[in-house]
């Protein structure tokens, strides 16, 4: 009897825990941490340096000498997900910002100030090697913890499609106590997302063999090559004809 009762208690407790988890996982009107999506609509990169820092008055204020940052973003604007890989090198001291974190995307063109639209977790030096890193994915709607003159959070109404429409109008930066205007900063530039479409299959068996030999990958590559062997042979015929034509020309 005792055992049955304790089992029942555990079950109820489990359900309660699950319910609590659901509540925590879906707060209203703030970004959530999500797994990496299977596809992206765009990607952006930032080379952040101290000399690009601008204060709120639009005046150039140098960040930490010798520091650099790289901000890599992949966006799925259909689902409002942004994945980030941020690396800060040569940044020292504590973070500081009126926003809920000190690492942001601001809506600001080069040389101009502008409000934060997304606040990312601050990069940390987990390895003790002086390099601070942060990676993950967030799903909007976004909040920053900074309010505008009207009292609204500066993330309100912002969507990732705005970055895709004008990446140069956005900047990545991070702020520390010693460099409150920014320790490093740089504009977003678009880069390609996903793989590169550089083949049409006319030499597929040879390509697969080369790949398998060089990387020691699974035998599936060779099986796949064999499956398309018939097509490859036809393609090779075309190549021979082409070469003959070239020789006659």
């Amino acid at each position: 009897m005792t055992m049955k009762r304790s089992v029942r208690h555990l079950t109820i407790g489990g359900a309660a825990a699950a319910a609590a988890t659901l509540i925590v996982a879906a707060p209203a009107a703030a970004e959530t941490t999500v797994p990496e999506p299977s596809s992206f609509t765009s990607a952006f990169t930032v080379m952040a340096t101290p000399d690009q820092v601008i204060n709120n008055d639009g005046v150039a204020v140098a960040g930490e000498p010798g520091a650099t940052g790289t901000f890599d973003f992949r966006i799925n604007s259909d689902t409002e997900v942004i994945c980030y890989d941020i690396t800060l090198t040569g940044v020292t001291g504590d973070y500081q910002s009126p926003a809920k974190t000190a690492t942001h995307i601001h809506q600001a063109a080069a040389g101009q100030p502008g409000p934060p639209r997304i606040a990312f977790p601050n990069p940390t030096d987990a390895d003790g090697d002086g390099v601070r890193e942060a990676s993950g994915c967030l799903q909007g709607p976004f909040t920053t913890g900074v309010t505008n003159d009207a009292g609204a959070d500066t993330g309100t109404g912002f969507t990732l499609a705005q970055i895709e429409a004008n990446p140069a109008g956005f900047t990545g930066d991070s702020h520390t106590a010693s460099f409150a205007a920014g320790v490093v900063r740089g504009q977003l530039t678009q880069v390609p997302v996903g793989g590169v479409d550089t083949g049409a299959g006319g030499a597929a068996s040879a390509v697969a063999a080369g790949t398998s030999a060089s990387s020691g990958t699974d035998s599936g590559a060779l099986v796949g090559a064999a499956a398309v062997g018939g097509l490859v042979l036809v393609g090779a015929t075309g190549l021979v004809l082409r070469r003959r034509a070239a020789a006659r020309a």
Partner: protein
Amino acid sequence: MTPRAGARRTGGPLRGAARAARLGGGRSGRGVAVGLGLAAVLVLTGCASSEADPAASSPPGAAASDAPSSPAPPATPSPAAPAPAPAVGTGAEPARVAVPAIELDEPLIGLGIASTGAMEVPDDADEVGWFTGGGRPGGRGPTVIAAHVDSTSGPAVFFRLSELVPGDEVTVTTVEGTAVRYVVDEVVDVPKAEFPTARVFGAQPTDQLRLITCGGVFDPGSGHYDQNRVVFASPAA
């Protein structure tokens, strides 16, 4: 810089392949018929990434011409030296790439970003292109060069890229005539579904070079290879 006419968006036909099919015409009826069939079916798709879904909403302003062609900022001190040190500038546009180990020496065309968000690739299977929205040789950030491993009818200009090994030299000559020498650090095959965008295209404080083509298994149904071969290189000492 706006990509020149030689660039194409993913999914378009390969000019080199079409030419090969035409050249075969009238010489072997059977081969030609099948060859043309191949051109009609396989040429349509190439080996685009599964991530680059043409049905997905096209990001407005995704064209490379909308992105600053030179993301590299003005010179800054290196992390190791707080005082102003010899800095990496913006470099110069590349005009030619040579890889002696595979007897490759080709001019470069400009490539941007397709409406799918993926990198444009050359129209012609015999052309080599560079991503104009990235770094430039001699400057900060990766210069990314891409070309086809094959057309529908046979090997293309980057077919022998798979022979490169760490230590091989690559020389990129700029429009100013400067030859920038790189040494291969690493050669990797990556599934397109997990393409390392940041590692290949992401900003870097130093001069870097990437060479990209297709690899892995070709799926005739989709017309795609499932992997990319990526060669990472850094400036020769």
